[in-house]
């Protein structure tokens, strides 16, 4: 195609845009809505996955986890390891954890089965938010020897969902603890914590002194895990690199690997997110095609006239491809602006869910991907539709258009 033919196509497209602002504005709005629908649901589901992980990171998983190798029972010389870790850069907190399980009975012999984490309360409060979410009573202190901290989901008076097993226990009341291989003991409920994600609340906590009383073989120099809290997720890899140089003889994992225990849930949300993302793009592409088809169909007479005066079909088709390109660009730009405004709105007023406060996660990569897809859909739609229309007989187009 010659330069002047391209210029003519551009001229026709430009005049079409100038004189049909209102109808084109409507088209642009539809394209931008397609853009938003592709991104927002995807972004929300991305945040569900993010929040699911964050719930565990902020309570009892941290960003980096040290565990014994499979051939080892526990991490040994925990005090020594913890002190070594504390001197590394970016460390906000280090806490040792020993995992036990037990059945807890109330006075009416109702029971729940729970995982009990043995913690050093002061150390643990530096890596976890549990001490900040006490609904009733208090967090644990070092030196106490018969106290237990339980999650709201296990306590009848606190659990509003009622879909889970609960015991009738209040702060200050004693519960009977039964664990395989250990004599039964009684612990006083010191506090009830309330986390937005009920899966978190299924864990109970005791301090090291209490652990010695309940689990006779408990050894405070050993631990099942050491968890480390960092300023941000991205610091995990460099911390792991530093730790691996220290020859601690422990298995090192970051938050992402550890998330595998609930990865099926995360994966489900990611898959749903991806499906909704591609359906959104597909719907946008179809909408763009339909709108452009209607738009160009209304121009049948004009297309006939342009062809009648001797302008080639390919010039006319190019003018409509240019128009579609313009609509795709402006629609995408408007889509980006509206999406950012919506994200800003959700930042101030997040969607409240059991997983956490959801704010759609959008990245530059997603904007580029959706923008490109919408632009491509616009250009292809414009080309197909204009080709179809310009093929029509001129007399048909002008006199029966």
């Amino acid at each position: 195609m010659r330069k002047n033919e391209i210029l003519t196509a551009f001229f026709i497209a430009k005049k079409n845009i100038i004189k049909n602002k209102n109808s084109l504005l409507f088209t642009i709005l539809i394209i931008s809505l397609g853009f938003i629908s592709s991104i927002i649901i995807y972004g929300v589901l991305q945040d569900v996955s993010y929040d699911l992980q964050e719930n565990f990171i902020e309570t009892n998983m941290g960003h980096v986890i040290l565990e014994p190798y499979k051939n080892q029972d526990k991490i040994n010389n925990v005090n020594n390891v913890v002190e070594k870790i504390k001197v590394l850069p970016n460390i906000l907190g280090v806490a040792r954890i020993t995992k036990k399980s037990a059945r807890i009975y109330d006075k009416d012999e109702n029971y729940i089965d729970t995982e009990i984490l043995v913690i050093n309360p002061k150390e643990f409060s530096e890596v976890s938010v549990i001490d900040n979410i006490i609904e009733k009573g208090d967090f644990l202190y070092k030196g106490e020897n018969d106290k237990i901290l339980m999650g709201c989901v296990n306590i009848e008076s606190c659990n509003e969902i009622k879909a889970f097993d609960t015991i009738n226990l209040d702060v200050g009341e004693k519960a009977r603890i039964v664990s395989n291989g250990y004599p039964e003991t009684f612990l006083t409920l010191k506090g009830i914590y309330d986390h937005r994600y009920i899966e978190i609340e299924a864990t109970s906590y005791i301090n090291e002194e209490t652990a010695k009383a309940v689990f006779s073989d408990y050894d405070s120099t050993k631990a099942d895990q050491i968890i480390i809290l960092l300023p941000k997720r991205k610091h995990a890899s460099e911390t792991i690199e530093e730790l691996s140089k220290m020859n601690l003889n422990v298995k090192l994992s970051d938050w992402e690997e550890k998330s595998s225990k609930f990865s099926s849930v995360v994966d489900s949300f990611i898959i749903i997110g991806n499906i909704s993302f591609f359906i959104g793009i597909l719907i946008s592409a179809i909408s763009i095609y339909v709108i452009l088809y209607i738009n160009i169909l209304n121009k049948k007479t004009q297309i006939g006239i342009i062809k009648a005066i001797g302008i080639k079909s390919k010039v006319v088709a190019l003018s409509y491809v240019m128009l579609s390109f313009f609509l795709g660009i402006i629609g995408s730009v408007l889509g980006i602006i509206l999406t950012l405004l919506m994200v800003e709105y959700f930042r101030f007023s997040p969607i409240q869910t059991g997983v956490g406060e959801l704010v759609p996660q959008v990245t530059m990569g997603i904007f580029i991907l959706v923008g490109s897809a919408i632009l491509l859909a616009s250009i292809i739609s414009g080309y197909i539709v204009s080709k179809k229309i310009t093929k029509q007989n001129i007399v048909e187009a002008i006199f029966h258009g």
Partner: protein
Amino acid sequence: MDKKIILSVKNLVRTYGEGRAKTEAVKGISFEVKKGEFIALSGPSGSGKSTTFHQISLLDNPTSGIINFCGQNIIKLNEDNKSNFRLKKIGYVFQHYELLPELTAIENIYLPLMVDKGITTEIKQRAEKILNEMNLLERKDHYPSELSGGEQQRIAIARALIKEPEIILADEPTANLDSLAGRRIMETLKELNEKKEITIFVINHERGFEKYFDRVIRLKDGKIDRIKK
């Protein structure tokens, strides 16, 4: 000296539909047009005037026959060459003006030239000159919807004229105008024919305008009924 034949139509046939629905709009007509002639095609409604024009101007493809334009059978051209032919050799004036509503008067006029020359000062000046000759220079930036029927038809003539075509085909150019505006259009066409020696072929339905033409070809039921000099 005899004038050169610019257009020669031989056994032109155009049928629509098939089987029982088959309609023969033009039934094998033949005629010639000489360079510089001001000629009319007349006849009652449905006689095949517009169909004949659509074939000559390559807006439609005839069922059979030959259309020789300056010695070349233009029916056999491919689509791109047909477009080029329409662009360079033919100026078409429609009954309903058929200006592009998105373009101003002057833009409608110079649009056909843009394909070859781009948007240059030269084509704008040429369009202004023609507008001036048509006494429409002050209306150059108006959109078709802001112009009267007569003004729109003169813009349509200017659009045909700017290409300096071999022939102007005007399909009932006065049909939608009042008698005064119609007469002005006919006088404009006659003047263009006489002063610029442009061959002009008009579909005419008004007996009062027959005095302007060198010849009138009368069609009846898709055939030539008679040719009046």
